């Protein structure tokens, strides 16, 4: 068995169907993943569950590289999924990249347990 993780970049759609400062979800059999697009067209992928009470982060207000959870306004850092400020917790982060206007999610991680 190859110990090195093999990447599997899966095209989940074009960037322009996500509003800037917004998010859309990708449903996989194991989990729902929120793909965020910032004002400066960066993309980030986090599990669509707030570390606090499981709120759908994809429904939150995206500002800078952060998102505010719609349930209790925890502010989660998109880069690493960590809650900011006094709150402690982390949403799982997934490898995502943007190439030629399309978004690719690394399914070797996203589909793994």
């Amino acid at each position: 068995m190859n110990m090195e993780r093999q990447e599997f970049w899966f095209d989940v759609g074009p960037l322009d169907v996500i509003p800037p400062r917004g998010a859309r979800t990708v449903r996989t059999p194991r989990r729902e993943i929120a793909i965020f697009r910032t004002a400066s067209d960066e993309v980030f992928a986090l599990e669509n569950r707030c570390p606090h009470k499981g709120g759908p982060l994809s429904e939150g207000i995206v500002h800078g590289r952060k998102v505010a959870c719609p349930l209790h306004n925890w502010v989660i850092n998109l880069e690493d999924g960590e809650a900011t400020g006094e709150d402690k917790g982390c949403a799982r982060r997934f490898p995502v990249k943007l190439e030629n206007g399309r978004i690719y999610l690394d399914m070797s991680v996203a589909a793994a347990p």
Partner: protein
Amino acid sequence: MASTPQRLVVVGNGMAAGRVLDELFARAPDRYAVTLFGAEPRVNYDRIMLSPVLAGEKSFESIIIHDDDWYAQHRVSLRKGETVVAIDRAAKTVRTDAGAVEPYDVLLIATGSKPILIPVPGAQLPGVVTFRDLDDVNAMLAAAERGGHAVVIGGGLLGLEAAAGLAAKGMDTTVVHLMPTLMERQLDPNAAYLLQKAIEKRGIDILTGANTLAITGDTWVESVRLEDGRALPADLVVMAVGIRPHAALAKEAGLEVKRGIVVDDFMRTGDPSIFAVGECVEHRGTCYGLVAPLYEMARTLAATLAGETVPGYAGSALSTKLKVTGVDLFSAGDFSERDDSDEIVLRDPARGVYKRVVLRDNRIVGAVLYGDTADGSWYFDLLKKGADVGALRDTLIFGQAYQGGGVLDPTAAVAALPDDAEICGCNGVCKGAIVKAITANGLTSLDDVRARTKASASCGQCTVKVEALLVATLGEGYVGAGRKPMCKCTDLTHAEVRARILDKQLKSMPAVMQELGWKTSCGCASCRPALNYYLLCAWPGEYRDDAQSRFINERVHANIQKDGTFSVVPRMWGGLTTPNELRAIADVADRFKIPTVKVTGGQRIDLLGVRKEDLPAVWAQLNAAGLVSGHAYAKGLRTVKTCVGSEWCRFGTQDSTGLGVKLERFLCGSWTPAKVKLAVSGCPRNCAEATVKDIGIVCVESGYDIHIAGAAGLHVRATDLLGHVATEEEAIEHVAAVMQLYREQAAYLERVWKWVERAGLETVRAAIMDDHEGRKALLRRFEISQRAVQKDPWAERAAGRELREFTPLAVLSPARKAIPAEVAE
């Protein structure tokens, strides 16, 4: 007795000569009898302000430095339009093109520079101009009058200013620049990129890396041909590729000339009677083309001519500011990348701010600022002094205001500033002026300072500094007005932001953030919804609602629940419903397997547990039965609760149900600072609980009592009686006026009762009950804003608007999962 004045002849009447005379007359007004020859047929003017003249922002009169009176007053013999063509050093005379011969004891050559004409075919065609003096500007203005295409060759300071001016005058303007980036001598590529974007935004085309091959045309310029084969149509060509010292006269007189007239540190040429100053000279191997060094030279020269002993001129570091309205750009020194240089960069892309300070051995050697140039002169000062900035390194990029104290202590930071430090960039107010205004006039508040000095009265970015000055000056005597900034993105309060949105006609969120100096690139989850509301309220029908700045509930017109599902509440006008509506609700609940159906406190039915992707279909089906969104999710009108009133109740005095329905239909759809709940009770028994609502009406025999500012949530508060009206029509008018006043005055998320307590019940009463004209104006504004919003958001979305909001980007089903699973093995 004064000795006979010496004869000083000055050749050239540009900015350098003008400044020398200013400095000289200040020191030794009677030492010289001055004769001044100027090739241009006019008095001395501020050449660097020609760009605003071209752009139509200034008149020639306003850029005159010395008018005719000035020359008369200083007994200067000004010979306008007379060009000196020869110097006879042996006889100590100059000869002019008019044939006149003028003797001198001291001669000053200030012939300036000439624009470079690139040696391409067609460069001499009519319609090809340079950008050097007022005649050039007039030629450009005449061409702009005729309209058509302008091609500016040269993407440096002058070329871009010319292009901006011509575009402002309506010409179709293209800039052709040889180098890959604009202003490459003053800017690094990042700032050049921002600059190019800003220039292109004005409709100016920019071609970089473009080499001009020829200018074509028969009797007038027609096009500019580039090396790559392109031909650009042109009715006007401006050559702005640079300048070279105008030293021919000195050279013919046998003075030493390299690139420019060679002078020593006291502006002396090889001939002890002849001095030279300005762009025509070469000092320590350098020729200058900017105004600051000319002024420094002029000071040294004037002192020397006045007989003072001063240290010589030692050369200048250079800084540049671009004079194109709306483009804020500063550059100074050297910022080329070298192995031994170190840099600090700050970017704020949304604000278009870019700052870069280049250090070498802990000293600033260069600075490029784009978008925010307030600290340009500070960096430049440190650069010129060669100051060791090692200790400031961590906060250097934040600018002067952050130095001299802890970063978090603005009072200490401001106290450490010198008196001439500029506090308010918008109005050019320095620290000394503010402190003086505070002490001399006994000012005690921010508003006092704003009124008296204008500091902090425009964009408000310096508000913290001004407050710190109040604290520093008054000490304990300063009691802040309990100012609370909107959020960490700004130092302005809600009210201040709202006032500026109106004053400055800010109509978009980027405009607000840019113009009011937001500290974050795109705001935060706290200020964005507030700004969205303020803009919507200020510019109804004009401002485009920003869905991404709304809380999810307002975006999807349903209420998010703890499990991520939504609840849907249709409107039941005044709490009335029908068997058909109830059947439709029951059908929807069945079809979409909605787990909970509940009656709400606002007299309607809540469908709980709807999956997000079902929302459009749920709405469509409810719409079909005539049910529309109840806005149960909105910072807006929620419900109008009613009792049955005179129609059924034996105690009822008026038709409270009917009034409730009318109010709900009139007010629904409006966005407000926070939710608004109403109730109408048919008699003082008050079954609709109107006296704990935001606005409540209690019907009495003689008409309608209007109550406001009740609450029955976290905080319980009975309403205050606002007043009494006789008719239903008046009741509706007064309630709508209260709504509008609240919409315009309250801070975002501030409930009606909090607003009334803050504004004062009497103030609100005066505005609604006493000021009849004012009330009618409020009503009209409310009606205008209602026109823009009274559409059922459910119908719009069921019809497909923003449908993407409700569907996942991708669904990876188990069949597809096979692929990644394989790879994962």
